[in-house]
């Protein structure tokens, strides 16, 4: 019995140590990425290719996700207000705040994580198991500089841009339902959207920037840590997506609390 208890303690201890080690390695990777980002000349071609890839891969799914999210929000809030006030008030306000401050950044980040995080982890992981990462070293190129930095720059640029675009699509989705289902005049709906403050828009975009850092760092880290052939690549890819999604959702709460405390949005 004593042995079983000790075994459990060792197992928990080992897991905590592993987690602490992984956290340290992620921070080290982030630091090295920042160092190379600041000191190495920008590989424009590689960065632009990554940006185009990220945009193209995420564009359609984020459009679809946010369009229907905006529509559902308008539908739900319209019916709720009808129940309380007998008429569909404030749909624009509800859709605007929900999409721009919360759902736009979070849902876009989750889609981005599934599409781009997976692609980054799979690509770097495959390069790792086929010794292409080692080959970079032997050809005098640091893999962090060559693989992580362009993806880092592309992700922190593209996710906020995609979020702005998704916010717009979500708000348009809300407008379609508000106008055609509840007969709310466009001018009323858009007035409520325009009444949002800059700080509310910034709130969402700051979160989006933080999410991009979480996703790209997690995906690159999982890619560089891949071992064990094709099976290992599969494991790294799944782990990158799940970990970054969980971190985005947890980070969302703490970022919202922090930004609210700082009176941003």
């Amino acid at each position, binding site marked *: 019995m004593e042995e079983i208890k000790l075994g459990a303690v060792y197992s928990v201890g080992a897991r905590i140590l592993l987690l602490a080690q992984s956290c340290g390695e992620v921070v080290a990777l982030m630091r090295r990425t920042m160092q190379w980002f600041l000191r190495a000349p920008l590989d424009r071609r590689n960065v632009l290719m990554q940006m185009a890839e990220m945009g193209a891969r995420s564009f359609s799914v984020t459009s679809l996700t946010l369009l229907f999210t905006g529509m559902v929000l308008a539908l739900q809030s319209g019916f709720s207000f009808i129940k309380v006030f007998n008429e569909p008030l404030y749909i624009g306000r509800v859709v605007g705040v929900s999409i721009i401050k919360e759902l736009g950044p979070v849902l876009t980040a989750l889609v981005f994580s599934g599409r781009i995080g997976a692609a980054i982890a799979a690509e770097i992981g495959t390069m790792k198991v086929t010794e292409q990462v080692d*080959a970079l*070293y032997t*050809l005098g190129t640091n893999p962090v500089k060559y693989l992580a930095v362009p993806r880092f720059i592309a992700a922190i640029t593209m996710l906020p841009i995609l979020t702005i675009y998704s916010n717009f699509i979500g708000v348009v989705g809300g407008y379609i339902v508000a106008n055609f289902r509840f007969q709310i005049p466009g001018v009323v709906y858009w007035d409520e959207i325009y009444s949002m403050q800059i700080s509310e828009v910034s709130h969402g975009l700051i979160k989006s920037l933080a999410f991009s850092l979480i996703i790209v760092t997690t995906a690159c880290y999982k890619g560089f840590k891949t071992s064990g052939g094709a099976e290992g690549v599969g494991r790294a890819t799944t782990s990158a997506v799940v970990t970054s999604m969980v971190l985005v959702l947890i980070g969302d709460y703490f970022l919202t609390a922090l930004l609210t405390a700082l009176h941003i949005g």
Partner: protein
Amino acid sequence: MIRVENLFKSFRSKPVHKGVSLEVQEGEIYTIIGGSGTGKSVLLKQIVGLIRPDQGEIYVDDKRLTTLSEEELQDVQKMIGYVFQESALFDSLTIGENVAFGLRNLSDTKEPKITEIVREKLALVGLSGVEKLKPAQLSGGMKKRVGIARAMAMNPKILLYDEPTTGLDPVMSDVISNLILEVKKHSGSTAIVVTHDMKAAYEISSRICMLYEGKVLEAGTPSQIRFSNNPIVQQFISGSSEGPIPVPTIDLV
């Protein structure tokens, strides 16, 4: 040229090297043979600085690798060309871009000159006109040859070959062996070759050493190895399952 002194390396407490020492002279082709899992490739990766040893020293051109900073290590890596077991060509780049990779990243060579070098190195390995193809469009043997061309592009003083003939048919293995000799004649570089292929080892080597149980068991010229009195060496070079080398067994239930 390359000196390895009393090298120890373990992975997850499993020892791979238990005091490996060897010396490679300038201009020779030094072949390392040994069973699977004896740490031949790990030794090459330590010589090029991809893996740090737990204990012991490696000197490349009198530079002690274990004490070098990342930048200094990169200077040493510039004089080493590495041919990977599975070629490790960059999938996203064309063959021409693969061969030019080191030149573009490590030298000030101008673009027209790079194109000329790429063409010359590919011609040397018998692959003219494949610059625009992607690695996926080539056969295993062709990939190996491109890997050699890429490693040679910077005219390195040292070339490390990790199982260059593994997975190739006998004819292609012979082509690669001849290519290794041709490269040495052409560039005068020193080479370390890791292989299981005894035919290739006899053909190309100046000296051969055998790794066994984490140490160098025997080293000598190809004829000394061929006629060695050591039963372990004899069993390995004859490829027999009978002898002192323990053979892992599989229990089929």
